[in-house]
């Protein structure tokens, strides 16, 4: 209860500038989420903290804007036939367990090594996972682009074909996105890992989407749309957990939601104009850039833990500011690529329409 009272007294005052700032960050975050299935959250938590919102309230409020946003995004993309609800729910439930376990690990690390230890763990998780997964996705997107078969339908990977070929009686479920039956014994660990990552770095989609594409064999568009269902399930459970402790600042959550609902609709529309490999390009780029942002913070936490020479206050400030700026740059770059691809797609469509009209006229 003590925490609750403290949290309530820590709800910040809102002025017009703060509201506009949160609205814009929400919009850009929503735009990227609508396109790749997740990805706005890692900027929102630090953005709120930079306004003086306590860490836990920022995490809780972020989560409480995430689930309604994901719901609207999922509904929009379901209209385009991109959502596999069953796969989303199956993965979402195991992701929920992953979130709880991930939060438990975080608490233990915090108890044992303090805030700096916990921050170091988060940053190292960021760097290692984003380097491996982000690098892999970018390489794959690059190969598709180089091979010139960006227009062709995506093929399932060898791993996905193997996963789809395994038959474990009693555990097989048909998923329409895979057009195959897959054992839930494969989906459970993937969902669990997604949830653990969500609890650690706030963006479970960086595991969820690539695992649906490369391990299960879902097309990129369906994987990123289905991730929104996972985010909804995870976010709803997580928000309720935090709300039980009175940590959600509903004003912050709803203001971010105001911006992000504009963004997520636009991002979802954007997916209908692009070639599927663009999902991988945007996701991979954001992951690799964010990796550098978090990498810069590693020395700060190492020095706080006394593992390396203490850094001067000025150096810490420069590293922190640069890290935050890189993170925002990553999100803006993602938003720029989405908008540009959409613009080009629309132009091409209009041109095609004009041609059709002309040809029709000739006949």
């Amino acid at each position: 209860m003590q925490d609750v009272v403290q949290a309530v007294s820590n709800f910040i005052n809102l002025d017009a500038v703060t509201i506009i700032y949160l609205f814009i960050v929400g919009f850009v975050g929503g735009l990227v989420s609508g396109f790749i299935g997740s990805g706005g959250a890692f900027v929102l938590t630090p953005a709120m903290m930079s306004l003086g919102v306590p860490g836990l309230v920022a995490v809780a409020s972020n989560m409480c804007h995430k689930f309604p946003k994901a719901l609207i995004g999922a509904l929009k993309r379901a209209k385009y036939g991109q959502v596999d609800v069953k796969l989303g729910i199956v993965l979402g439930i195991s992701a929920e367990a992953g979130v709880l376990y991930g939060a438990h690990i975080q608490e233990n690390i915090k108890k044992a090594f303090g805030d700096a230890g916990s921050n170091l763990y988060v940053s190292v998780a960021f760097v290692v996972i984003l380097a491996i997964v982000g690098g892999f996705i970018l390489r794959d997107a690059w190969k598709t682009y180089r091979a010139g078969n960006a227009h062709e339908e995506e093929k399932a990977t060898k791993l996905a074909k193997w996963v789809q070929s395994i038959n474990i009686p009693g555990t097989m479920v048909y998923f329409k996105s895979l057009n195959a039956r897959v054992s839930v014994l494969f989906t459970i660990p993937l969902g669990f890992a997604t949830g653990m990552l969500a609890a650690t770095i706030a963006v479970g989609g960086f595991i969820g989407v690539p695992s649906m594409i490369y391990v299960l064999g879902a097309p990129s568009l369906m994987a990123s749309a289905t991730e929104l269902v996972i985010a909804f399930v995870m976010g709803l459970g997580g928000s309720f957990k935090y709300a039980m402790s009175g940590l959600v600042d509903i004003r912050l959550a709803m203001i971010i939601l105001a911006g992000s609902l504009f963004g997520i609709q636009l991002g979802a529309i954007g997916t209908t104009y692009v070639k599927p490999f663009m999902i991988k390009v945007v996701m991979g780029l954001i992951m690799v850039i964010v990796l550098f942002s978090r990498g810069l913070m590693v020395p700060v936490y190492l020095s706080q833990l006394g593992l390396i020479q203490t850094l001067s206050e000025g150096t810490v400030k420069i590293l922190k500011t640069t890290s935050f700026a890189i993170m925002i740059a990553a999100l803006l770059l993602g938003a720029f690529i989405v908008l540009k691809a959409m613009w080009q797609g629309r132009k091409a469509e209009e041109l095609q329409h004009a041609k059709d009209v002309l040809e029709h006229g000739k006949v």
Partner: protein
Amino acid sequence: MSGYNKNVRKKKPYGNMIVMGIIAIALYAALLLNQDVINNTFGKGGIYAFLPIITAFVFSYFHGAFTGSFWTVLGIEAAKKKREVK
């Protein structure tokens, strides 16, 4: 607006946008004008946890409908040619 968009068969959802927009603005006004009461109640935790969750659903329903119509009215819609999705 291009000539292409003028050919869109469906009527633009102006009415929906306006009604949903007004409701969304009213919801936000109510939230921001009663910040203290809302924060005190929602921050109590326990069974009160349902309040922020319900609020989130209500806001997303009306504001989501508004933003959807907003982009449609602006002529920003999904690609006409249905993409092949397995």
